[in-house]
């Protein structure tokens, strides 16, 4: 028998498809899958949140509060109380026992913790120029409680972590990839929550003062140095400019009047040297 060596021209062992096209297909599938998981988890978490008694929430809040070194603040409490007094009688917020804390930190932020605890950072207070602005911020946080956002955020976060780990294993790279994809959905969801809380805050502010003055003052000061909108794609809060636009739209729709604001009582911030 004659031995004639031949070189193979075609390689049957390697698939011909382009890797980038495969990547596109797989990424598309991943985003679809993550969206589905997020959707189902969201519905489950929201359902669980609506069934969670406020007692349980208060207990979770106590745990969360230990993370923030803060003191309960008397004059902020009075501000909050006057807002609560102007809430309608049937509001579910009356079931909460609200406590408001002042934390000595540079952050321009306020947080709604489960169980009716609000933490205001002194960095935010320093930027406040009128009582109405402060009331708007507090009313915004009350909005989070009214929609129980802190709990559903917690529930969703927990759900995402558990689902990703269960599906793809604890240490696997796939689970971190899925979590990253879910993050994008989470940002969008969180921004929607913030806008809803803004609307609630605006309504409550108008109930309290009879006009919507001061609702957008703070945001317009923020938007001056907020820069362009690109970084806000993945942020938890919408761009201040978008918040202003939404609030102005709401003011127009509801025909709220905008009057002059009242100056802030300067005893809130403890004297600093």
């Amino acid at each position, binding site marked *: 028998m004659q*031995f004639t*060596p*031949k*070189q193979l021209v075609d*390689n049957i*062992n*390697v*698939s011909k*498809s382009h*890797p*980038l096209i*495969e*990547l596109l297909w*797989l*990424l598309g*599938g*991943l985003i679809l*899958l993550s969206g589905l998981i997020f959707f189902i988890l969201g519905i489950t978490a929201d359902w669980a949140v609506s069934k969670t008694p406020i007692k349980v929430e208060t207990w979770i809040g106590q745990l969360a509060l230990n993370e923030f070194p803060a003191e309960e603040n008397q004059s902020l409490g009075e501000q909050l109380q006057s807002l609560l007094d102007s809430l309608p009688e049937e509001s579910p917020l009356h079931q909460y026992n609200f406590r408001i804390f002042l934390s000595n930190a540079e952050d321009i932020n306020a947080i709604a913790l489960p169980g009716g605890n609000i933490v205001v950072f002194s960095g935010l207070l320093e930027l406040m120029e009128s009582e109405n602005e402060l009331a708007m911020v507090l009313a915004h946080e009350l909005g989070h409680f009214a929609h129980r956002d802190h709990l559903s955020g917690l529930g969703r976060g927990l759900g995402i972590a558990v689902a990703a780990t269960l599906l*793809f294993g604890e*240490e*696997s*790279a*796939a689970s*971190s*990839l*899925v979590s*990253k994809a879910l993050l994008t959905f989470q940002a969008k969801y969180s921004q929607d929550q913030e806008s809803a809380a803004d609307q609630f805050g605006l309504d409550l502010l108008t109930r309290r003062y009879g006009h919507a003055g001061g609702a957008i003052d703070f945001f317009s000061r923020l938007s001056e140095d907020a*820069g362009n909108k*690109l*970084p806000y*794609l*993945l942020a938890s809060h919408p761009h201040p400019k978008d918040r202003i636009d939404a609030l102005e739209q709401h003011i127009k729709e509801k025909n709220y009047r905008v009057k002059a604001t009242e100056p802030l009582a300067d005893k809130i911030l403890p004297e600093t040297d």
Partner: protein
Amino acid sequence: MDILLQNFDLVIFLLLAILGYTAGSLAEKRHYRSIIKREKELLKMAVITAEGSFPPSKVKESALVTGSVVVSIDYFKRLLAILRNIFGGRVKSYESLVDRARREAILRMKESAKKQGANMIINMRLETATIGRNANKKKTVGSVEAIAYGTAIIMN
């Protein structure tokens, strides 16, 4: 600029994927060019499976020849494989890796046989092993080792 810093891990992830893709496909193209060229050169070195025995007068010497190679995955290939782990199906990104490793191992074996003046290799065997198990787990690098071995026959 801020957005880059805030999503630092995402940026690193993207950079590694792009680096993996460009460097990986460049290296693969070069490797295939060299494989095809050397396969042509060594075409005359027959690799066959033989049974029975050679007439002692014809065989001057026989020797064990081996060729082995380790090829690493790149970040992009790993990314594709991780995504494949979710949906299932052929892990196409690893196919070329295993193919390259096998052919390179055979080539190295043939080259070593040629150096010893052999005319043919009989009864070649191929084995593969993974170095760095669980290549799709975090913080591990996966690579494939292929080893080819056979008996080189040096004729009279």
